[in-house]
């Protein structure tokens, strides 16, 4: 039984160019730990989608990653506007991203669906006006 490894990141809401730093660092850490490349790929993709969401929709937020013996848990939380209709937000292609974000190639409405697709477990809760909380895991 190994001691869990914990990584924490703050995702800024105003700087697009920095979204991706958390997933890049987490990916490099998992490579050092010798985690199966296929699992690393799923963590990196799910986490990157989450970072982009935090940057676009939530005005920034936090990510805590816990790497245990056989599971990587990613906790993303923010104090953003919240999601009024989660099932709608989870449907592919649905997006509330403004045009300028779409023109950058983001906001295709695949963020949350992709996170769910690449993670082994995915839980989301949100309160309008208070924020969103996501816990997802990938078996490693």
């Amino acid at each position, binding site marked *: 039984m*190994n*001691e869990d*490894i914990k990584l924490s990141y703050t995702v800024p809401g105003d700087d697009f160019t920095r979204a*991706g730093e958390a*997933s*890049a660092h987490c*990916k490099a*850490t998992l*490579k*050092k*730990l*010798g985690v199966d*490349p*296929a699992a*690393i*790929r799923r963590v*990196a*993709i799910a986490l*990157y989608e989450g970072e982009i969401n935090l940057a676009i929709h939530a005005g920034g937020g936090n990510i805590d990653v816990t790497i245990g*013996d056989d599971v990587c848990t990613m906790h993303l939380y923010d104090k953003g506007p919240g999601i009024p209709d989660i099932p709608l937000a989870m449907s592919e292609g649905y997006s509330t991203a403004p045009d300028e974000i779409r023109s950058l*190639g983001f906001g295709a409405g695949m963020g949350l669906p992709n996170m769910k697709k690449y993670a082994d477990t995915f839980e989301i809760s949100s309160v309008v006006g208070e924020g969103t909380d996501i816990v997802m895991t990938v078996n490693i």
Partner: protein
Amino acid sequence: MSEFVHSVTLDKSICHGCTRCVKRCPTEAIRVHDGVAHILTERCIDCGECIRQCPHHAKKANYDSPELLKNYDLTIALPAPALYGQFNNLEDTDLVLNALKAYGFDRVFEVSAAAELVSDATRHLMKAAADEMKPFISSACPAVVRLIRVRFPNLIDRVLPLIAPAELAARLARQKAVEETGIAPERIGVFFISPCPAKVTAVKMPIGSARSEIDGVLAIKDLYPKLCSLMKTAGDEPLSHAGRIGVSWASSGGESSGLVSVDNYLAADGIENVIRVLEDLEDEKLHDLAFVELNACAGGCVGGVLTVENPYIARAKLAKLRRYMPVSENHLPGSIPPQMLWDTDLEYLPVLELGSTRRERFERYAQLEELRALLPDLDCGACGAPTCAALAEDIVRGYNTLDNCPFLMRKRMQELQSATDETTPEENP
């Protein structure tokens, strides 16, 4: 003197032990200890960046001497397309090819001709492949393939399983010479006239095939002055058999343009840019791409460390040279011949992992974090490692100690000093 087993040799008498190469190595494969640079061979991808960066020219590219020509009954030159970009006002590649014969080669076989076949084979593979297999990543740059092998395991399946043009040229040239002259294959010497030393490693430790057909790698910069003078008097035998597509391979974007009908490609050059593209590809940040061409050297092969001309000038010269060339002179008869395909799979070499078992890796990671908290995070390089994080990794792997950090050392000296100051008055009243 031969310290490095890769395509780089270090002249210890010239190396100052500065950390310029250490800091610029894209895979953090160099450390300075005992006053000289050392390469961590399992990490080195032969990109040649350290040769480019060394201000003292202590790093020398490793390649073969033309003396080797004497060992064979028949010799064949395989000029890289980048060679044509080195000369001023070159209107006809035949001038260069005739000069190579005048230099002493019995035959010439253009790598650009083989490149056209690789372009054709790539088109075949891309046409047959399902969309989810794409994008394909070019396998032409050996440094890029080695980089993927140690750092991007998830992209290994995307690397085109085709041998590089120089290797294909060697196989075809030898085969043809054997058929036409009856000379035994081992008595024929096949020499690649190369823009980069990574090809030397590609010959000695090939990826994708068990054995290389290239017998020696000669440097463009060595032959260049001799070819310049020989071009004035060389014959005018028509030797060229490659077109625009083959010659285009010399610079970044050329291989992609040779795919003709594919317009959703990306061509990146310069090792730092290449790494960024690979990271993004791995994270699926790049969409709707069919082909990715990556060259470790800025500008593509014309930017190799064994070339003479500025890569951007060379590219402009090649564009001029190509203008009146036919599009392509070489085509596959039908399907891809097996000799063009890799016979050995590319395998992930997890050199970045912290240990051999998961327990060891987790334990070492915890130690790593503790060490990083102690280190100043200045990345000065004075310890011989490129960054504080790299030093911490070296320590947990057992290659270095904290004593080599000058900041921690100074802190300790100051502590000792103040401890001594406090005790001194009592001892010496």
